[in-house]
């Protein structure tokens, strides 16, 4: 049966008026075979590989944009966790910084806006190379523009590496001071249960169990979902869930089609579709506004957690029906600075840090892109991270923290990062928290649910 005018118009409206786009195509590249004891040789090889594949990725994404009329906003690259690649090299900060600069230059040459993977898995302990990379983060991320870092600090199977959590409080403070408005911290996310096929920055990396290449895709449809919710102001919640499911099915199918064709064109394996609804600062492209369209007065007031749980459950059901390759994070993204509705909710006092954390217990994948006063002590930052990651570990899900302690700013002020990173209101946070607890360090044991065999 030929497609009807109504069906065509629905699709065209999604891209024309409702901000539907492919938020990112992210190519994961294995760099393990580039490892060398000679730093220059290693850098030369990875730069060549990234530039070649990055250019191909851009060409393929452009062709798909033309063919299907759906914008492919970001083209990104993720690589094997760099702490692994640095193992044979001298353990100096200068080595790690040189590798970061090489990645940055390669991304620039290939016209790739962000390259992820400058990090490692340290949930159980730190190798000398992991430790070196962590120590190098403030310099590496403040001296590069496109490099993103992730660190997996905990997992349900291993527990939580509190020694690394304690260190990160200091690292983030140091990085914030070294970079303008603290923006360096927007390029690093710490995780519990990090997935190795997530296409979204800053946490994207090419996981250890991945093939040589893997093309992962992230779709963006908060605007589309918001419009269908608004068009159905009176239906009950069961029906609303069905409506959201049907809509997400459609956008996921479009995403998968484009992802598969990009992978085919590049002769690489197609990885996953990440069905997370990714907001942008553009008006109408907000997850918070979907929650509000569902009937919650303001994002953050009582009712928000239930509404968000319903929303993402429907998103997952629609997405899983649409694609057999759903993966990555596939949860709710509610980055404070990148979502106009979130910014408004914080400014009006409806949403605070405690509620933001509560939302991650049902479906959100982390406390993302929120700014706190620059004077916040390192141990308080570590304590925020520990709380958030403990939620992920105990609930067998991914959680993450991307926090920006903005130098010289106080609660109530705001900071503008520009572009997709948006504007962050500075959120209030206590000056004294759990210094004694954080300073104990060590490893919090894995929860009982890790013993599943």
């Amino acid at each position, binding site marked *: 049966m030929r497609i009807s005018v109504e069906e065509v118009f629905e699709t065209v409206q999604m891209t*024309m008026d409702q901000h539907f786009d492919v938020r990112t195509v992210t190519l994961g590249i294995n760099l393990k075979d580039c490892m060398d004891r000679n730093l220059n040789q290693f850098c030369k090889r990875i730069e060549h590989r990234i530039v070649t594949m990055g250019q191909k990725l851009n060409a393929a994404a452009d062709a798909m944009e033309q063919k299907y009329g*759906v914008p492919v906003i970001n083209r990104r690259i993720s690589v094997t966790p760099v702490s692994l690649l640095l193992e044979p090299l001298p353990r100096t900060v200068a080595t790690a910084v040189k590798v970061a600069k090489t990645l940055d230059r390669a991304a620039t040459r290939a016209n790739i806006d962000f390259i992820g993977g400058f990090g490692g898995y340290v949930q159980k302990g730190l190798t000398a190379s992991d430790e070196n990379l962590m120590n190098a983060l403030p310099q590496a991320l403040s001296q590069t523009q496109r490099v993103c870092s992730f660190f997996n600090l905990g997992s349900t199977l291993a527990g939580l590496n509190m020694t690394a959590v304690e260190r990160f409080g200091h690292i983030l403070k140091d990085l914030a001071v070294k970079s303008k408005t603290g923006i360096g911290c927007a390029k690093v996310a710490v995780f519990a249960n990090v997935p190795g096929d997530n296409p979204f920055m800053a946490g994207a990396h090419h996981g250890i169990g991945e093939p040589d290449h893997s093309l992962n895709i992230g779709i963006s449809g908060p605007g589309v979902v918001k419009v269908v919710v608004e068009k159905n102001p009176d239906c009950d919640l069961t029906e609303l869930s069905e409506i959201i499911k049907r809509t997400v099915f459609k956008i996921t199918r479009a995403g998968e089609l484009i992802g598969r064709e990009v992978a085919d064109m590049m002769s690489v394996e197609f990885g996953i579709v990440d069905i997370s609804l990714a907001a942008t600062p553009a008006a109408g492209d907000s997850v918070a506004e979907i929650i509000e369209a569902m009937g919650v007065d303001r994002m953050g007031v009582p009712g928000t957690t239930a509404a968000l749980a319903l929303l993402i459950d429907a998103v997952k059901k629609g997405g899983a029906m649409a694609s057999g390759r759903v993966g990555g994070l596939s949860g709710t993204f509610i980055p404070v600075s990148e979502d106009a509705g979130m910014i408004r909710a914080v400014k009006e006092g409806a949403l605070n840090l405690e509620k933001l954390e509560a939302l991650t217990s049902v479906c959100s994948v982390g406390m993302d892109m929120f700014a706190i006063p620059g004077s916040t002590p390192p141990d308080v930052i570590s304590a925020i991270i520990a709380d958030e990651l403990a939620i992920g570990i105990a609930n067998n899900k991914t959680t993450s923290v991307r926090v920006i302690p903005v130098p010289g700013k106080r609660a109530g002020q705001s900071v503008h990062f520009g572009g997709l990173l948006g504007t962050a209101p500075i959120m209030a946070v206590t000056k004294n928290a759990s210094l004694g607890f954080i300073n104990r360090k060590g490893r919090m044991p894995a929860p009982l649910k890790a013993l599943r065999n």
Partner: protein
Amino acid sequence: MAKKAPKKTVKEPQICIVTVTGKDKVGIIARLSVAMAKNNINIVDVNQKIMENYFVMTMACDMAEATVAINEISEKLSRIGKEMDLQITFQHENIFKAMHRV
């Protein structure tokens, strides 16, 4: 509509959909048909409707024998759209099939 091409040169159909939205006026189909014919693109179906106060016309056409690439015809159509004050998009049919057919 053009006759079917001789059998030996028949290629797999490459159906694309042109969507026109805006205000209805004289000559829309004429302009589009000329552009299609010039580039050897066969029109296979045309439909139109008024929806949510929009005039919407869809035209299915086959690019199999086209003398231009998708991006070129797409640019030509956008130019026509600008001249006639209409929104014109050009997309491969597969996107609609993926989204609207299980």
